[in-house]
């Protein structure tokens, strides 16, 4: 069931209230921008994606049926718009992860804020190196705090798929961030399996 405030906003929008769309933008721009930024890793790209999302929303919300939460709809549109943007800009060269992790993993010095910022840059860079599908799940769940069901609805995939993407993505990130050695632990060829 759609949120009452959103329902009111959409009703005003449908009735031609010019301020209603501004209120929708005000309510959701931060979330849309943040998803776009974490997905694309670049503010300029995030601005473009955010603009695309709301330009499309101007048209699409006229047909919004209210069978999903407006927030969920914006999560989905922001994620898809970011993925489209990434597909169109594949040739862009990114900074190697080693370069940023080197700064981020150095010993804490007097300027903790700068180190925190360097660490955030390293995490962002590692995030950018994930596959887009893994990144989308991780951005929604680990960064924006959606639960698996909400992320599954936003991404249009089953909850089990979200979970397995998250587990793989966290392992990949752990390696990229230096929390985990690249090599698998030594052991026998038949590892233990989880009981069903």
């Amino acid at each position, binding site marked *: 069931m759609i949120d009452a405030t959103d329902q009111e906003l959409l009703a005003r929008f449908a009735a031609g209230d010019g301020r209603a*769309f*501004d209120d929708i*933008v005000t309510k959701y*721009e*931060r*979330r849309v*921008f*943040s998803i776009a*930024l*974490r997905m694309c890793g670049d*503010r300029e790209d*995030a*601005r473009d994606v*955010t*603009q695309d999302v*709301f*330009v499309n929303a*101007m048209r699409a919300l006229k047909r919004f049926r209210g069978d999903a939460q407006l927030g969920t709809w914006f999560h989905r549109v922001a994620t898809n718009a970011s993925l489209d943007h990434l597909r169109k800009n594949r040739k862009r060269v990114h900074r190697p992860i080693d370069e940023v992790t080197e700064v981020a993993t150095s010993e804490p010095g007097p300027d903790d804020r700068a180190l*925190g910022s360097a*660490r*955030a840059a390293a*995490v*962002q860079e590692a*995030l950018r190196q994930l596959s887009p599908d893994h990144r989308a799940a*991780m951005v929604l769940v*680990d*960064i*924006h705090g959606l639960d698996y069901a909400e992320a599954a609805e936003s991404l249009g995939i089953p909850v089990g798929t979200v*979970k*397995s993407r*998250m*587990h*793989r993505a*966290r*392992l990949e*990130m*752990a*390696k990229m*961030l230096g*929390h*985990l*050695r690249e090599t*698998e*632990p*030594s*052991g*026998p060829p*038949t*590892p*233990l*399996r*989880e*009981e*069903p």
Partner: protein
Amino acid sequence: MRNHYEPEILAAFASGDAEPSSRAQIDGHVGYCDDCREIVDAVRATMIDLADLSEEEPTELERAALRRALAQRRHQPGGLTRRMMTAASAAALVAALAIGGSMVGERNSQDGTGGGAEIASDMLMDSPEIVTDARNFDRSNVGSLLAAPPSMRAAPATKGGPDAEYGVGGDDAGAARIAADPQRCQQIITSTAKRPLALRSGYDTHFEGRPAYIFVFVDTAREDRLELWVVDRFDCENTLYFEQSTSK
């Protein structure tokens, strides 16, 4: 020789997603298996890193740019076709500019305080207008351009070329060089100015003999300040900047 869990199972365990029937068994295993515990710890450390990567907010400048872009779209469903400035908006602009008025000077930030011009919010959100003006401006009449905008009549339509789709004239339309998109020039200015600027008017004209766009902006954080930017029509990065306080 020691058995190990698959990394994905350990990642699920670290994430709190392991099957309830297996949790105790995995927990017991990682209690003595250093290799498996390393994976669990690494996944947990990664989750902490990600949680620290908080939601990012757009800056005020970015918010203002988004609203301008959306307002443009709202007023221009056709996309690229530019309207000439209407008499009503021109009159509002004259009224806004006529309040106070002291030329501060090129790249000089002696802002006035208090008593700012009243700028209607819907004007700030309105779409930018690029108006052709046949006159040649120079530094000596920047003040008058800010204080009393020139005639809003359009010059004869351009013969073609890249300017054509913006409906602006100019004798360089047929030249080999391609005129910069005025909208892009505005974006460069607003993104580099580090101030929330709202476009009040734009002119396709000449400045000191060179083809130029002239943009008049209002600093939305300080509505008592107007800014005039002259931009080389063929090179958006080449700008000249003036500002004027409208406070008394």
